[in-house]
């Protein structure tokens, strides 16, 4: 128990240190623009269709589940409110984060893990090349930026999926559905006059992307022991990313809405 706690503290310490090092190297982001653009492609375009597909069905599921209950009380015309708030506050950022952890995060950990066991990282070290600047910063930045972008896609397609179900299965007129969506998302917060439910969701996505990128890179960098080690670091990266995302989600929700 004590050993597990110490291991956890060491892991979190390493991840925080890595995040700090990434932060210090952000000033060289322009110099690394080619690598960062590649990460935008890897973290964004390559999973775009997955986010579309999953987001659509999540929106449809939320609409169906809540719509059935609301119709028992004759409140099905509020379905747009529930779907839009659910998607923008929680489901969009969270579902996007899970998709990114499972696809991009695992690939990052496996890629860096393979480099570690093949001594490519050691080669960088003996050549006095800063591996955080070359490998980690572009990857973390790519995920941190693309997670909110994909969350917007997920929010939008989820709300459209809700509209589909509202019209076809709950008998709610599409115009009324979108009126309630706009009404629900309209209240502005303190940030630049933007709707609070949207920017809090996007901020969550930014944090989730950063967390997934940092944890996945940290696990990859510490891989040891050939193919088994790469598999192990990939498994740990996905597991720890999802756990950290859920914990971060709770505290961010508490901070914004608690």
């Amino acid at each position: 128990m004590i050993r597990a706690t110490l291991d956890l503290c060491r892991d979190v310490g390493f991840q925080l240190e890595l995040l700090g090092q990434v932060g210090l190297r952000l000033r060289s982001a322009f110099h690394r623009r080619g690598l960062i653009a590649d990460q935008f492609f890897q973290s964004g375009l390559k999973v775009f269709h997955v986010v579309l597909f999953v987001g659509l069905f999540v929106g449809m599921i939320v609409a169906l589940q809540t719509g059935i209950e609301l119709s028992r009380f004759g409140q099905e015309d509020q379905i747009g409110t529930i779907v839009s708030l659910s998607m923008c506050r929680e489901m969009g950022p969270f579902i996007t984060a899970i998709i990114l952890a499972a696809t991009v995060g695992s690939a990052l950990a496996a890629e860096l893990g393979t480099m570690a066991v093949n001594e490519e990282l050691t080669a960088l070290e003996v050549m006095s090349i800063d591996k955080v600047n070359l490998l980690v910063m572009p990857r973390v930045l790519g995920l941190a930026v693309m997670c909110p972008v994909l969350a917007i896609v997920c929010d939008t397609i989820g709300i459209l999926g809700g509209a589909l179900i509202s019209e076809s299965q709950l008998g709610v007129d599409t115009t009324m559905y979108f009126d309630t969506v706009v009404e629900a998302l309209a209240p502005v917060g303190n940030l630049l006059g933007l709707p609070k439910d949207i920017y809090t969701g996007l901020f969550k996505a930014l944090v989730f992307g950063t967390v997934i990128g940092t944890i996945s890179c940290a696990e990859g960098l510490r891989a040891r022991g050939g193919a088994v080690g790469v598999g192990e670091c990939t498994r740990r990266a996905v597991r720890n990313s999802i756990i950290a995302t859920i914990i971060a989600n709770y505290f961010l929700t508490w901070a914004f809405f608690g």
Partner: protein
Amino acid sequence: MTAPAGEDVLIRFEGVVKAFGEKRVLNGLDLDVHRGETVVVMGPSGTGKSTLLRHVIGLLRPDAGRVLVDGNDMATIRPRELRALRERMGYVFQDAALLAWMNVADNLALPLRETTDLSEREIERRVQEKLMLVHVPGSDERFPSELSGGMRKRVGLARALITDPEIVLYDEPTAGLDPEIAMSINLLMRELRERTGTTAMVVTHDIGTARTVADRIAFLEAGRVHFQAPPDEFFTSDDPRLVRFLGHQGSRA
């Protein structure tokens, strides 16, 4: 922190001890490598040959004793000085350790792009020069996965030489190669030493490598230098342990 290491001694091991867990790999090892000399380190598996090289480049620090490189104590050297020292060294990895996502030209150019202010034109010139030097011209656009084992070793060697290092460390440079390719690598190492005059440490099990490139051969046993001598003397030695290690190949010198 610096300490005198003898005028022409570039690398010095003084009573170096290194353990991994319970296993003591280096056990009071002493060895000098002189400027311009090629020292081959041989010995059974697990006697700390690669560990020795990793101390020289600062990847490992001794538990006791000292490793001095050009007078710099590698246990206490500051990060900035270590970076500067590493820029004077080249390290040839057993499996080349080329970055799989970069082509050959970018692999070679990487150390120059990351650690120097050279222009792209000058970097390109140096890349072509080193590819010519290791006899793999025209492979710039190929990726490591498209190269044969021998070519990967050559490209790894070219990358180690791209900064014109004073010291080159070879970790099993011919491991896993067929005898013909291995001999071509050996001849290349000898040619490079003659042309560039670098100081080198070569860790190998390959007797052909030792015969071809060594000025002096050190035989490690139980974490210490058991025997060291120039090749002629080494391969004709009647030291029982050495005779057992070399088998019938020793008598062919």
